[in-house]
C-alpha cells in the first residue's frame, strides 16, 4: 500500500520523439487510477516508467515517498499484469505463481500457502498443475493476476489486462477486478483504451492524448464536465454529438441555435455563462446521444431529421440521423420508451424530430476546444 507521485515525468525516444510530456500526478494510497486514451497516447509508456521497464527521460517517480527512478523493477515494490498475460509457458500454473516467491527464497510451505490461497480467491485451484497453454484466455489472465497478487506489493499495475479477452469474458473479468480490488485494498494503476473499463473501475480517470494529460477526474466529473472536446468525445458511448453553431446572449439569457432551432441554455449552465460574461459567438455544442429525445413535430425547438441507420442494441436503439443541413447525429433511445407503432415507424428514411434540454448541453470554444464552463 503506497502513494505514487509523478513529477514532470517525460519520456523521449531517440532524442526527439516525445512520448510523454511533463506528466504530473499524485496517486493516493489505495486509490484506483485508470490511464485511458487512444493508442499511442503514452499511457502504457507512463505505466512502464512507473514499473521500471522503461527509462525515465526526465522528472521523478516516487513510490511511498521514495524516488524510484534508478531502482530495478523488482526493488520498487510493484506487481504487474501484462496485456498478453506473459505467463512462463514451460512452467505449471503453480510454478508461475510461485516464481517470484522462489526468487525471494521463501520456504516451500509458505509458498504453498500463498499460492493456494491466491488460486482459491481466483478460482483456479483445479488448474494449478496445468501448463498455461492448456488454459483459456480468461483462466490465463487469472493466473497472471494470481502471480501479481502473491507478491504482496505496494502498487498493482495493470497494462490493458482485459483487451485480449472476448467481450463477454471482459465484462465478467471487469467485475472480478472490482472484487479483487476490494479484497487486496491496495493502490491500483490500470491502463486501458476502453472508456467503459475506465468509467466502471476507476476512482479517478486520467485521460491522455499524444503524451499530454487532457483531464484528471472522477468518472462523474469527466462525464458531466469534460475539460475539452477530446475528453467529451472520448468518454461515453456512442460518442457525444458535436454541432457547430452560434451562442447568442440576449438580456442576460443564453441561447444556442442549432439547425434553425433556438434553445435556451438554462439552469446552472446558463448561470455559469452569465457569471463568466461569455459573449455571443461561434461555439461547438456537444450533446450526448442519451440526452437527445425523439419529439413530435409540433414540439417547440424540434429539429427535423431523417433516419439513416437504426442499430438495435437490445435495451436501447442507436439511431443515426441526418439533419437537413447534412449533419450526422446519433440518438440513443431506450427500447422501453417506444410502443409497437413507434418502433415500426423507425425505418430507414423516416422523418423524425429530435430535441434536447438546455441542461444537457456542453459548450466548447471552437478555437481552443476548451469547455466554456470548465
Amino acid at each position, binding site marked *: 500500500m503506497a502513494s505514487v507521485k509523478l513529477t514532470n515525468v517525460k519520456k523521449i525516444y531517440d532524442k526527439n520523439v516525445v512520448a510523454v510530456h511533463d506528466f504530473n500526478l499524485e496517486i493516493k494510497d489505495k486509490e484506483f487510477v485508470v490511464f485511458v486514451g487512444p493508442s499511442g497516447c503514452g499511457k502504457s509508456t507512463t505505466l512502464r516508467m512507473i514499473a521500471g*521497464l522503461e527509462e525515465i527521460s526526465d522528472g521523478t517517480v516516487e513510490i511511498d515517498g521514495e524516488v524510484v527512478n534508478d531502482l530495478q*523493477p*523488482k526493488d520498487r515494490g*510493484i506487481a*504487474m499484469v*501484462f496485456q498478453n498475460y*506473459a505467463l*512462463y509457458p514451460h512452467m505449471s500454473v503453480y510454478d508461475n505463481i510461485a516464481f517470484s516467491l522462489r526468487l525471494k527464497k521463501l520456504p516451500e510451505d509458505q509458498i504453498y500457502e500463498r499460492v493456494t490461497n491466491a488460486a482459491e480467491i481466483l478460482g483456479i485451484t483445479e488448474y494449478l498443475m496445468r501448463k498455461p497453454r492448456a488454459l483459456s484466455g480468461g483462466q490465463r489472465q487469472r493466473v497472471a493476476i494470481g502471480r501479481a497478487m502473491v507478491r504482496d506489493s505496494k502498487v498493482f499495475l495493470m497494462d490493458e489486462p482485459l483487451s485480449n479477452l472476448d467481450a463477454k469474458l471482459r465484462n465478467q473479468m471487469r467485475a472480478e477486478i472490482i472484487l479483487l480490488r476490494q479484497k487486496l485494498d491496495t493502490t491500483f494503476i490500470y491502463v486501458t483504451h476502453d472508456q467503459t473499463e475506465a468509467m466502471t473501475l476507476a476512482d479517478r480517470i486520467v485521460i491522455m492524448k499524444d503524451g499530454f494529460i487532457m483531464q484528471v477526474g472522477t468518472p462523474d466529473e469527466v462525464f458531466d464536465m469534460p475539460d475539452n472536446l477530446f475528453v467529451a468525445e472520448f468518454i461515453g458511448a456512442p460518442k457525444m454529438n458535436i454541432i457547430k453553431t452560434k451562442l447568442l446572449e440576449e438580456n442576460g439569457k443564453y441561447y444556442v441555435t442549432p439547425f434553425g432551432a433556438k434553445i435556451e441554455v438554462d439552469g446552472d449552465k446558463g448561470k455559469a455563462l452569465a457569471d463568466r460574461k461569455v459573449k455571443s459567438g461561434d461555439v461547438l455544442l456537444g450533446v450526448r446521444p442519451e440526452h437527445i429525445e425523439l419529439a413530435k413535430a409540433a414540439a417547440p425547438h424540434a429539429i427535423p431529421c431523417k433516419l439513416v441507420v437504426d442499430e438495435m442494441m437490445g435495451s436501447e436503439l442507436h439511431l443515426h440521423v441526418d439533419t437537413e443541413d447534412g449533419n450526422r447525429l446519433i440518438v440513443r433511445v431506450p427500447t422501453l420508451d417506444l410502443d409497437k407503432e413507434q418502433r415500426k415507424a423507425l425505418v430507414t428514411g423516416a422523418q423524425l424530430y429530435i430535441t434536447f434540454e438546455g441542461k444537457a448541453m456542453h459548450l466548447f470554444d471552437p478555437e481552443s476546444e476548451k469547455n466554456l464552463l470548465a
Partner: protein
Amino acid sequence: MSKNENTSKRHMGIKAANRLSNGFIYALLVIISVIWLIPFVFILLQSFRVESTNQVGYVIPRQWGLQNYKNLWTSDFKRWYLNTFIISLASAVLVTVIQLCMSYTLSRFRFKLRGPLMRFMLILGMFPGMLTMIILYRVLADLGLTQANAVPGLILVGFASSGMGYYVSKGFFDTIPKSLDEAARVDGATRLQVLYKIILPLAKPIVIYTILTAFMGPWGDYVFARYVAFGTSAGYNVAVGMYSWLTNDQINNWYTTFCAGGVIVAVPVTILFLCLQKYYVEGVTGGAVKG
C-alpha cells in the same frame, strides 16, 4: 447415379495417382539411402577384417576379428582421440555459453552501435576462415600454442570468434515475447536469472543445436588442426593422426586399423545425434518463422 459413379471414379483416380507417386518417391529415397550407406557399411566391414592389414579388392572379410580395434589401443590413437575430445568438449561448453550470451544481449538490449556491430560481424563472418590461417598460426606460435600445445591453441581459436555466430540463436530469442523478460524482472529476477530460468528453457532446441554444432566443428576438423600441430604427433587430433596412416608407405600396415578408428570416431557423434535429433531439427527450423 452416374454422376456419383463418376465422382467415385475420379476419387479412385486420385488415390491411385497418389499411391503411384508415393511409391516412386519411396523407391528413390531407398536408393539414395543405400548409396549413402555404402561407405559406412564398407568401413564397418573392413574394420573387422583381420586376415591382412592392406587394401584388398573385396568387401566381406574372410576372417573376422577385433585385432584392428586392439591395434588402436596400442597406437597413438588414444592420444589423438583424447585431444579431439578435449577440444570438442571445451569448444562445446565455451562456444555455447558465449554464443548464447551474445545472442541474448543482441536480442534484448538496445545500446549504441548495436546495429552496426551486428552488420559488421555478419559481413566479417562471410570471409572464409582459411584466409586467417597464416596469421592465426603466427599468433598461436608466438603464444606457444602450436605443435605439442596444439590442443589449447585449437580451443582458443575455436571459441575466440564464437560470438559472431549469434545469428541463428538471436533469431530464435527474438521470437520469445519480451513481456516474459519483463514479467520475470518485475517478479524479482536479475537479467542472468531471466536468461537461465526463462529464456534458455524455452529455447531448448536452439541450445542443443548450438552445443551440437560447437561440438561437431572441432570433431571433424582437419585442415587447421594439421596446420597447428605441424608434424608433432602429440598435438594431432583424430583426423590428422589417422591421415598419417594413409601415406603411401604406411597404408598397407594401417588400412584396416584406420577403418576401425573411423568407426570409433563416429560413435559419440552418432549417439549424440540419436539422442538429440528431435531438438536439432526443431533448432534449425525453429528460429526461422515466428510461431
